[in-house]
């Protein structure tokens, strides 16, 4: 969407034009809903929280100053809404030492690392990998799962993710790398690929 279009829609939406607001959020609806669904892992909760977040954005439009992209601002509201819900329910898994790669005193791997991608284009393999990945993602802490999703699934930049998660680029990069390492370890166990 061209900036001018978005600015015109913003002005109209701020003047309580609901149609303009609908047009404004339309390009981002699916991405925002899926980001919330990734956090909640529950479609009913995701639908409720998506509605809460969108209405909150509508109410807070005057507070949007344009320092970040509108899509980043919208994601920030949606992610905060979903994470607050999760925090209130106190349902956050933790990462243990066993979920991270291990090295010996020389900084070398403590066990053989096997390559389970011998047939990376094999359809059955990719299907199983995707299934395993979704399950492993669900076991990550909420913020880590959100960051992986925004970066690797939605292709957002580190800067955008930092804005959307009220964090810093450095923290986003650190959490993203650690989360990928955890996913790799858990999938290695699933594929029986370490010895």
């Amino acid at each position, binding site marked *: 969407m061209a900036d001018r279009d978005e600015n015109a829609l913003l002005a109209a939406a701020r003047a309580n034009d609901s149609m303009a607001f609908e047009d404004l959020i339309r390009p981002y609806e*699916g991405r925002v809903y899926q980001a919330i669904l990734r956090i909640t892992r529950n479609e009913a909760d995701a639908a409720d929280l998506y509605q809460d977040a969108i*209405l909150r954005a509508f109410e807070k439009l005057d507070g949007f100053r344009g320092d970040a992209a509108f899509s980043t601002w919208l994601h920030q509201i949606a992610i905060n809404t979903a994470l607050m819900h999760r925090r209130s329910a106190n349902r956050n898994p933790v990462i243990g030492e066993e979920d991270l790669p291990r090295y010996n*005193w020389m900084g070398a791997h403590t066990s053989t690392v096997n390559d*389970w991608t011998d047939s990376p284009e094999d359809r059955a393999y990719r299907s199983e990998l995707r299934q395993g990945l979704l399950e492993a993602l669900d076991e990550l802490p909420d913020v880590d799962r959100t960051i992986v999703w925004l970066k690797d699934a*939605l292709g957002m930049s580190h800067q955008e993710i930092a804005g959307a998660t009220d964090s810093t680029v450095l923290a986003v990069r650190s959490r993203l*790398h650690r989360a990928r390492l955890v996913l*790799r370890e858990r999938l290695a166990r699933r594929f029986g690929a370490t010895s």
Partner: protein
Amino acid sequence: MRRTMAFLMRLMGRHTCEDVASVLQEYFDGTLDAKLAAAIDRHFEGCPDCRHFARTYGDIIRATGEVACEDIPEEVRERVRDAIRERAAQRKASSQGTNGGLVGSPGSDAE
């Protein structure tokens, strides 16, 4: 001990497997310094564990892109659209109430 060993190896121009894993994000982003990237590639040539580790790490990034989805159920979209219109109508009514009860044109946002 591990840190000392890593330090000594770096002095010798070599990197430990732990060093390699710590820069994989930048390696796959393409933001790693060219000299360091070349050193990592040399490490891969002699270390199948790191080669396999990097390949599986990269395949997970790729697979996450494959499960990406931007769908929203139509009933959710419609429900939220109705909620937005209702909220706009409430705000309009509220605004009119605070303006001395002026009557606006009927049937606008709330329809």
